[in-house]
């Protein structure tokens, strides 16, 4: 179509044959979710560009560029490995503690970056939200995209480290890593989409999220083995603790990239738990999108 001039008469004919569409978001009814997804799919190129923009603009004028996105997690890793691992003695109970730590930290940082980035994404793009119609889910999704990119870089380092320490072996247990990644992505996206919409109406959400994410990190077995926590809990609380989807994902990642050389007790039924968490997560994601589409009608005036 590019470059082909259309005569006014042809334009009228084409317009006449087009069906009527509602302006703006395709609506909030149950059946509309599909058309909203189609709308987002149509804008996938833009999604890619926005993700790239976010990544490019972040470290644009710094000399080291992307290197900075690695420095933060690596420093965190170093501090935890020394302070928690050596000083507090966690490394004595967990062999290859650095890998254990890094596996959990990598997947947790993905969760934290998606939720944190998505929550503030609508506000950060308020210029666009107010001036152009786009399916607004694009903005939290582009935050997801850029978080995945950062995750992949860290993930490559994790693989290298695991290979060096000899904890990387090939086998079906690697699927736990994939499962953990999928579960984190589903939940983080659902929460991110929901909170990004709420944040427009109540700006406190983004600060609250920072605090909760910090708390959440200690609530997942990144710095200690999960059995340390469950040993001190009544059984019902231990079940809740273990079935937290982020905990499952962290354990899944450790299972995939650290466990092969360890004789620590594996979590029973991990695959099933991940699967259930995934199914529930998809339902949650669907619900979050519905809430988002209901709230987004007033975005332009609230910003």
């Amino acid at each position: 179509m590019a470059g082909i001039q259309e005569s006014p008469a042809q334009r009228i004919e084409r317009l006449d044959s087009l069906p009527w569409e509602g302006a703006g978001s395709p609506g909030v009814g149950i059946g509309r979710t599909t058309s909203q997804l189609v709308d987002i799919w149509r804008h996938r190129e833009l999604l890619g560009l926005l993700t790239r923009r976010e990544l490019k603009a972040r470290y644009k004028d710094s000399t080291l560029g992307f290197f900075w996105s690695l420095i933060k997690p690596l420093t965190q890793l170093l501090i935890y490995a020394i302070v928690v691992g050596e000083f507090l003695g966690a490394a004595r109970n967990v062999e290859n503690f650095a890998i254990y730590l890094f596996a959990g930290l990598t997947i947790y940082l993905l969760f934290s970056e998606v939720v944190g980035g998505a929550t503030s994404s609508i506000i950060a793009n308020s210029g666009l939200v107010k001036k152009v119609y786009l399916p607004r889910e694009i903005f939290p999704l582009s935050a997801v995209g850029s978080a995945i990119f950062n995750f992949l870089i860290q993930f490559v380092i994790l693989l290298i480290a695991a290979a060096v320490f000899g904890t990387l072996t090939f086998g079906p247990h690697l699927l736990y890593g994939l499962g953990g990644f999928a579960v984190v992505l589903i939940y983080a996206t659902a929460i991110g989409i929901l909170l990004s919409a709420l944040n427009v109406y109540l700006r406190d959400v983004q600060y609250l999220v920072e605090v909760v994410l910090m708390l959440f990190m200690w609530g997942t077995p990144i710095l200690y083995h999960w059995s340390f926590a469950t040993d001190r809990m009544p059984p019902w609380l231990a079940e809740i603790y273990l079935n937290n989807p982020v905990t499952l994902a962290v354990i899944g990642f450790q299972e995939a990239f650290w466990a092969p050389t360890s004789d620590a007790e594996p979590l029973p039924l991990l695959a099933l738990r991940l699967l259930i968490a995934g199914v529930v997560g998809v339902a949650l994601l669907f619900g979050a999108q519905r809430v988002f589409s209901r709230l987004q009608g007033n975005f332009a005036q609230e910003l």
Partner: protein
Amino acid sequence: MVKSVPVVQLSNVSKRFVIRKEKSLKERIVNAGRSAKFREDFWALRDISLEIESGSTIGLIGSNGSGKSTLLKAIGGIIEPTSGSVLRRGRLAALLELGAGFHPDLTGRENVYLNASILGLSRKQTDFYFDDIVEFSGIANFIDTQVKFYSSGMYVRLAFSVAIHVDPDLLLVDEVLAVGDEAFQRKCLDKIRSFQAEGRTIILVTHSLGQVNELCDRAVLLKAGSVVFDGEPQKATATFRDILEDRRLEEVAAHADEPINQGRILDVTMTVVGREQGAAVEPGDDIEVAMTFEHDTGMPNWMAALQIDSVSGQVVYGSTTKRAGIKLSPLREAQTVTFVLKNSNFGSGKYFISASLMDTSGVHMHDLVQVLSFNVPYYSLAVGTVHAETEIVVG
């Protein structure tokens, strides 16, 4: 073949804004029970129904806060109406702000791709148009520079250049034509004309009534969220001027006891030398406009002004006693000033006379806007506001 088909249908569209005073969590919790007291409803649009035909150019006019931009955003889908429905078909491009979505840290090239994608072009199409876009913008040398180093003019040029290369069926334009230098505005207007010729539909929000008369074939006048006039642009702009004048008079009335506004124009009369009262003005006639002024408390320095407007609102003549170098004696009792326009040569059409009382720094004390009018008969050889004997020599 169909001549035109509707492309936008608004039925009973209303939009309510809730104005809230508080925002933080603490304030909300503290005020939770009484939140109704802290909100105020504001109807930006009330029950608007419109149908817009393809190929037409529509001007939305109205004073500030009358809901024009809200209506445009509702058509564009940026704002969802509280009630009613907006239906639309065809590809839409909204120019609500030039360069919305430009990121200062990215280069011009990256921003062109991003912006084009926001406006709905695919990567392939942008590749195809890229050279055209850069050429039209005239900033090829800076295309790989971050846009934060651009001057505002360069920024606007690039943004506009992207926007016009999108191939929309329906173009929404919100006052963006007011930015940029004159050459750039010309470029914008030329582009809009060629869009018209290509059968695209344009909806325009503007404060320039001249532009509405010039470009649009239909105008919608909004007042406090309702449509008060929908039809011919000339009539719409005239109605709008009446509304503005009424509002100005109200404001004046509200401040009536202030001594500053105690001056007034009592009377304006017009005579054409050698013709009957109310007769048409022929080219070459002398026009006499007499204005009578008065001031309650006395005004030492003042001037009288005369302005003649065409139907489209264009000023075709204007002068003041100050321009003529006349020092008027202090105004208190009624005083009459007569402007004589010798050998006037107005082109055919209707003209309006406005009179003003001003202080010498140009502050208007009292205006009688378009208080009188006269007609100049049809001249078959030319159009426009200036009359000249026409002779065409070929060869």
